[in-house]
Structure formats: C-alpha cells, structure tokens
C-alpha cells in the first residue's frame, strides 16, 4: 500500500497514550527512532497491517487522554498501524464518543431517551443548559451533550461522564448538582461502585449470584459453584455440550431469537480457526440486563465464553462491550485478569490442556455496532457498517473466519444448561420459549429493574412485579422490545411475554425491554424520540434507512404538529421500503414502533 500521511505530528502526551496501547515503535518506519538499517530495508508490511484491529483501542487511548483526536495523534496512529488517514478519519467520525474537533475534556452525556424522558430528563437538560450553557458548547473544562439510552433506565435519568485524563463514570438518578459535581469533582474509584441501588429479582439461575457474591472475587465465585460447568463441559466433550444446548431449546436473547444450539453446531462444523464473540454492546433503548450481568457476575460471562470456545473449537474470544459501561468494563477486565492468573483462561484452562483466552473490546458510541457484522467491522478497525448477509457469521465472521456470536444473556444461560442438563432447562418456561428470561422494566413503574422469570409470565404480571404504575396513575401504553419493538396498550396485559405470545399479537420480545408509560406521559414526544433515535443511529450505508429514517421523522413531526393530512399513508410507504429494502435489522425495524404507535392512536389520534 502506498501510504501517504498528513504532516501533523503528535504531542508527547498523544504519542505516549498510543504507545501504551501499541507498545513502543520498533523502527523508523512506524514512527520510532530511525535505525541504520531502516534506510535499506522496510520492516513490517503485512505484519503491521494485520494490527489494524488495534485502531479503535488506540483511538480510545488518545480520546481519553487528550479529550479529542487531533491530526497529529491520528497521523501517528496511522503510521503505527499502516492505515490510510482518510480511512481512519472515516472510523473516528463514526463514533459518538470520539471527537475530531477540540472539545472540553470532561463531557456529560445526558440521556433523554424513552425511559429517562419519563423520569425528567427534560428538566435536567434545561437545568444543565442554565448552569453550563447550550449542549456541546460548554467552554473550558466541561460540557454536556444529549445521549441516546445509556442502558441505565433502571436509574433514570442517567448520565455518562466521559472524563479525559481520568476514568469514565456513570451516574444514575441524576440531578443538575450531581452532574455538575461529577464533572468538576473527584471521580469515585471503581471499587466504590456498589450494587445497593440495584433492583433485581431472581426467579432463576441467571441472577442467583447477583447482589450476593462479590463480582470482584474469583474465590467467591468458585465457592458459589463457579467453574463447575466448565469442568463438566470438558468431561462431556464438545459435541455433547452442543447437543445439550440444542436439547435445551435455548434461543438467542439478543433480539433475533435464533436457536443457539443450531448456531453452535454450524460454527463447530465449519473449518477453523474460529472465534467466539460475546455481544455486550447492549444499546437497545430500554435494555440494561446485560449491564447487570457484566457488572455483577462477570466470571459467569467468562466461564460461559470458555464453554462456548470449547464446544465450537475456538481458542480466542472477544467480548465487545459498549463504550458507555465503565463499571462493567472495569469489572470484566479485572475478572479476565484473575481468570488468567488462576489458569481459567490461557494456554491450559483448568489444567486440561485446552487453550482459550478473551480480549475485551470497547465500543465507542454507536448502536449499530450491536449488529453482529457491524460489530466485527468495529473490532477489525473499520467503520461499524453491517455487512451484507449471506455469508453469515457462522461461515465468515470476525476476520473472515467462522464466528460464534452470542448475546451476554444467551451465554449466561449456558451455565445452568450444562450444570442441570438441557432437558431440565427445557422443562422451565413454555414449549416455544424455554428457560428464564431477564426483563428490563423501566419508565412509569414503581420499582424499575431487572426481573428474572420463567417464560410464561404475562405483561401484567411483569408490571405487577415492578410495583405497577404510581398511585393515582393509569397505565397508558407499554413499549415491548425497545425502540425496535412495538407499543401495546393495557388490553394486552394478559398476553404472555414469550416469543410466541408476543408474536401472536404482532409484537416481539426483542431484547426484553419493557418500558411502561402512565397517563401523564406525552406519547407523541416519546414516539418522536424513537424516530429521532433511528435517524441518529443509522449507519448511513443504504438509502432506505439513511434517508427513510429522516423522512419518517419528518412525516411523524407533521403528523403531530400539522399539517397531518396524508402523513399516515406516507409513513406506511416509508415503513415498507425500510422493512423490505434495508441491509440490516436497524432499517428493517426502524418503523416498527412508530407504526404501532400510529395504529394505536398514540400519535395523530384523530387521523
């Protein structure tokens, strides 16, 4: 490749930040000291280009040390990794957490998505505007910007603090003062992150340890039965493990409900090398269950990944976690370190001669990177644009190799299946939806939180578990499955929250988000926020979604603000092209919630 770089040079601090991730440059060719031999022989070439997957980690390093990515910093990264600057710039500008222009180093990302809107995000934003100035414009050291769902809807309104020079932090039940003091004050140490404000209710194995065992102590995890499933899996052999998963009837919890056993088998049957990818990008508005699992039970995620690796024949796993989850990132990183020390990851897992290791990768603010093929591109150092399928990940996934990608909750289910057997697992729940499910209840409920129930509970029962709506309020609508899901009305409370139960009323379980709206909520603005979400989060690759999400938002706005004539028809036509013509699930579902809201009269009631 004929690489032409820019002329800008990095500052010493920027160079240090990059070198911390990539190591010291080993020749003049990649920005190090020029050695005598460098004048005669080029080193690197392919071996350096193959490090492109370190692009995003290197960008993160600069962003979190300098607060933005200057030409000099990007240029240095490009030199180190042999990436053309234009391509690298295309990558940087894809992510909301990365900035290519100078901005204050301490940024509050203020969620005003569906659940936080219900919890007063509007007032919070207005107060911050008074205290800090308009969004994005803060001068000096601090600023604030609007954010889509931060995966903390149980603690709405939520704010993510991106703090260059220190470590990031998230605050729940945010108030103007707590945001400002979070921006200007001392950031709490990770160790102080506690679980006291966590509402979880365990009706099964997935949350059994949460809030009881320390998430930071491998000894505790093992004492509570941890790593028995991996030992058992080693005894059973790979195919028996896959058979057990198949027998369990487990289906993916990431939204698409694909049979997990079938996916594992396909990867195992493909020629290696193979990869395991755990999808912890969790960005579907209203969804926060994977965060709770990763924060509170990180060893279980790691153990399940190791079992998956053993079953499909992969020696390397990647855990991709969304960039706005600082505590979960810290705890998972720590757990991976401990697991390595105790021989539960590495070249000789449990002393059984099996190799498996995990690399933790942070996203950088892009909902689309939860789509499995966009996630691969993100890890590989490209723009997080979904790939055209086929080929499917089981044939050609990460680095072009057969890849098993599973949601965090899906993986968490592997442990009870191996420990208790697939048959017992399948006996829980309903025939079409086996096992237990983590439901994320938020919005106008008394006790927002993650509730684990055996499949079969109705929407009404879930609502009751969360304490129902507040006294004197009436239930208006429920958003099931997140922004990609649908609105249902109180007459659906008897519907079982199962794949088949929700499917029968034209809704879908999606990620397990259940966002509740009482009669005080202005539904048009909620529906409008969803349309805005899809416009903002479209990767921009395909016309139906890139332009369709904009036109949908515009037509919806006219439907609400007037003139409404003909807008419903237009919305239907836009919905059809997005559903039929888009490349990926984002565009294909970008109209679902809006369509259901219009059908139920939650917006444009009279038309």
């Amino acid at each position, binding site marked *: 490749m004929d690489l032409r770089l820019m002329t800008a040079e990095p500052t010493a601090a920027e160079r240090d930040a990059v070198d911390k991730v990539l190591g010291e440059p080993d020749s003049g060719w990649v920005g190090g000291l020029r050695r005598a031999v460098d004048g005669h022989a080029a080193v690197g070439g392919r071996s350096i280009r193959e490090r492109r997957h370190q692009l995003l980690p290197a960008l993160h390093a600069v962003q979190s040390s300098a607060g933005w990515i200057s030409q000099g910093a990007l240029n240095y990264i490009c030199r180190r990794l042999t990436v053309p600057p234009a391509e690298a710039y295309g990558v940087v500008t894809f992510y909301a957490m990365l900035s290519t222009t100078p901005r204050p180093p301490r940024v509050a990302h203020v969620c005003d998505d569906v659940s936080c809107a219900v919890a007063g995000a509007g007032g919070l934003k207005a107060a911050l505007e008074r205290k800090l100035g308009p969004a994005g414009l803060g001068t000096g050291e601090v600023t604030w910007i609007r954010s889509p769902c931060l995966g903390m809807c149980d603690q709405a309104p939520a704010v993510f603090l991106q703090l260059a020079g220190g470590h990031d932090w998230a605050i729940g039940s945010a108030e103007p003062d707590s945001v400002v003091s979070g921006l200007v004050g001392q950031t709490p140490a990770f160790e102080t992150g506690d679980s006291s404000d966590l509402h979880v209710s365990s009706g099964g194995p997935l949350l059994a340890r949460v809030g009881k065992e320390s998430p930071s102590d491998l000894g505790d995890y093992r004492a509570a039965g941890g790593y028995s499933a991996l030992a058992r899996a080693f005894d059973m052999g790979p195919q028996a493990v896959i058979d057990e998963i198949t027998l369990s009837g487990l289906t993916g919890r990431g939204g698409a409900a694909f049979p997990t056993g079938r996916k594992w088998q396909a990867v195992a049957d493909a020629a290696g090398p193979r990869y395991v990818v755990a999808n912890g990008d969790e960005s579907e508005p209203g969804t926060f269950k994977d965060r709770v699992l990763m924060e509170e039970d990180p060893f279980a995620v790691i153990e399940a990944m190791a079992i998956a690796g053993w079953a499909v024949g992969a020696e390397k796993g990647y855990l991709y976690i969304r960039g706005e989850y600082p505590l979960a990132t810290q705890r998972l990183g720590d757990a991976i370190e401990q697991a390595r020390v105790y021989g539960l990851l590495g070249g000789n897992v449990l002393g059984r001669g099996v190799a498996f290791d995990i690399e933790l990768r942070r996203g950088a603010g892009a909902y689309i990177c939860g789509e499995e093929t966009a996630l691969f591109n993100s890890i590989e150092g490209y723009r997080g644009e979904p790939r055209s399928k086929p080929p499917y990940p089981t044939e050609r996934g990460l680095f072009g190799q057969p890849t098993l990608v599973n949601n965090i909750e899906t993986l968490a289910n592997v442990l009870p299946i191996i420990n208790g057997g697939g048959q017992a697992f399948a006996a829980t729940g309903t025939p079409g939806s086996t096992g237990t499910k983590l439901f994320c209840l938020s919005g106008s409920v008394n006790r927002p939180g993650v509730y684990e129930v055996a499949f079969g509970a109705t929407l009404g029962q879930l609502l009751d578990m969360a304490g129902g709506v507040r006294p004197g309020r009436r239930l208006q609508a429920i958003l099931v499955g997140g922004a990609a899901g649908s609105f249902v009305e109180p007459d659906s409370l008897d519907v079982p929250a199962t794949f088949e139960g929700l499917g029968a009323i034209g809704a879908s379980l999606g990620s397990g988000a259940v966002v509740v709206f009482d009669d005080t909520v202005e539904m048009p603005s909620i529906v409008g926020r969803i349309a805005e979400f899809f416009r903002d989060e479209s990767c921009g690759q*395909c*016309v139906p979604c890139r332009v369709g999400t904009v036109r949908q938002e515009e037509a919806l706005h006219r439907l609400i603000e007037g003139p409404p004539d003909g807008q419903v028809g237009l919305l239907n036509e836009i919905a059809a092209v997005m559903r039929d013509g888009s490349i990926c699930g984002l565009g294909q579902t970008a109209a679902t919630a809006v369509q259901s809201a219009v059908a139920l009269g939650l917006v444009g009631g009279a038309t």
Partner: protein
Amino acid sequence: MSGVVITVDGRPVETSADLTILETCREEGLDIPTLCFLENLTPANTCRICVVEIGGSRALVPACSRRVESGMQIKTESERVRHTRMMVLELLGSSVDLSLTPLVDQLMDRYGAAPDRFDGGATVEEAPTIDNQLFVRDYAKCILCYKCVQACGVDAQNTFAISVVGRGFEARIATEYQLALPDSACVFCGNCFGVCPTGALIPTTEYEMRAAGTWDEDAQTVTRTICPYCGVGCNLDLVVQDNRILKALSPLDHDVTSGHLCIKGRFGWQHVQSE
C-alpha cells in the same frame, strides 16, 4: 461452475452457480435497474434499487451481489419490488440533486416516482468543493454509492485518499479532516469520477462548460484510442466536441485496466490542443 435451475418471474431459467441474480437476469434480457453497481467494482449493496423478491426471504435481496442458488424463486417486478424501487428513487430524488444522473427520469417514470412528495425535507445540499484544477466535487449530487471510495481504494487505485465520513444522513465522502485534495493522498488518477454515476465528481472542463451552457452531448463524439504514455496499453475513450478533447474515459471491459487510468491518460491530453 455447476449449472442450476431457478425460476424468474414464473419461468424456469438455467444458469450457473457462480453468477449473481443480476447477471442471470441480464442474460435473460431482463432490465434490472442499478445505481451503486458497476462491473469493475466490488458490489457495495448500498442503493437498494436492484432488489428482487426471493421466495422464503423476509426482506428483498440485492440482485447485484446475491448469487443464484438452485431452486431460487425470483420475482423481479413484484409489487414490493416496485414499491421499494419507487421509494428509493423518491428518497434520493428528494434529498440529492439528480440532474446529472443519466436515465434517472426514465427510471422515475417506470416506477411512478414523485420525489416532490417530500418537498421541504432535509437535503444534502452544499456548495461544490473546488480545490484543484482537474476535477470538482459537487457533493450535493452525491447518492453515497461508495463507488469512488472503492475505486480509490482496493478495487483499483489503492490510494485511499477518500472515505465515507460521519454517520447516517450526515455521512459524506471526504478526505481526512476535510483536507483539500492536493494536500491529501490523492494522485489525481480520476478513477473516482470515472465511476461516479451522478456527476457529483466531474472534470473541471465539463463542470465549467455546463455552467457556461456550452456542454452539448449531441455535438460530441467518443473516440477509442490507446494511451500514448507507457507500455500498459490502457484504452482511452476521448470525448470530443468541436474538435476539442473534453475528457478521457476508459472502457470498463478492457482486460488490462477495467476502466481505470492514471493521471497521464486521464488528464495528459492538453498538449494535443496546444497551439
């Protein structure tokens, strides 16, 4: 490659498993529209105007990249297909200036597209970027087909001077930090405007003549010749008006260069006209 039998619009068709749906349909004489597809580039799959309906598939599939499989049941003009094509044309037509996109009016007619239904909506309008003497980048006309990025990158030039930048409706084609082309990696091969389907990338000569109203396609001839500069032997298609060379293109089906050139063949013809 092995022969397979598929059904196209109700008719059984014998084809080969290494062909795409588009290639098969073209062999059958069916006219499937394309915008982002070009024979000499890797399909980018972005415009979605070529979609067809396949039995058993929930969403429509892009004919330009999907390979045929035995037993496929394909509908090339079903109601869903026609609606998607109409909407793609309306979505583009209402957000992008398609005035220099060849044949787009016929396509609009064929699918009954009326982009003015979305009048008043957001557009990608912006002033043309004129930062060099050889070609103009008028991104108000860009449909983001990715062709120029591919031609500048792995599909031909391997220079990687431009990339898709930003996300969603804000995504644009740009150099790093929007540097002017002469300050970027660009080597002025012109392969990007050679593949641009909308006139967003346009040689300066053509841009200025269009502005002056002197660009007259009816008065133009195209002459095929061989580039005189080096031994590769690239074919040139010289567009000539009033006995003046206006631009150099290259035939896509040329087996050496597949339609791509370097700066010499692309722009090195001024001396022919020097007095």
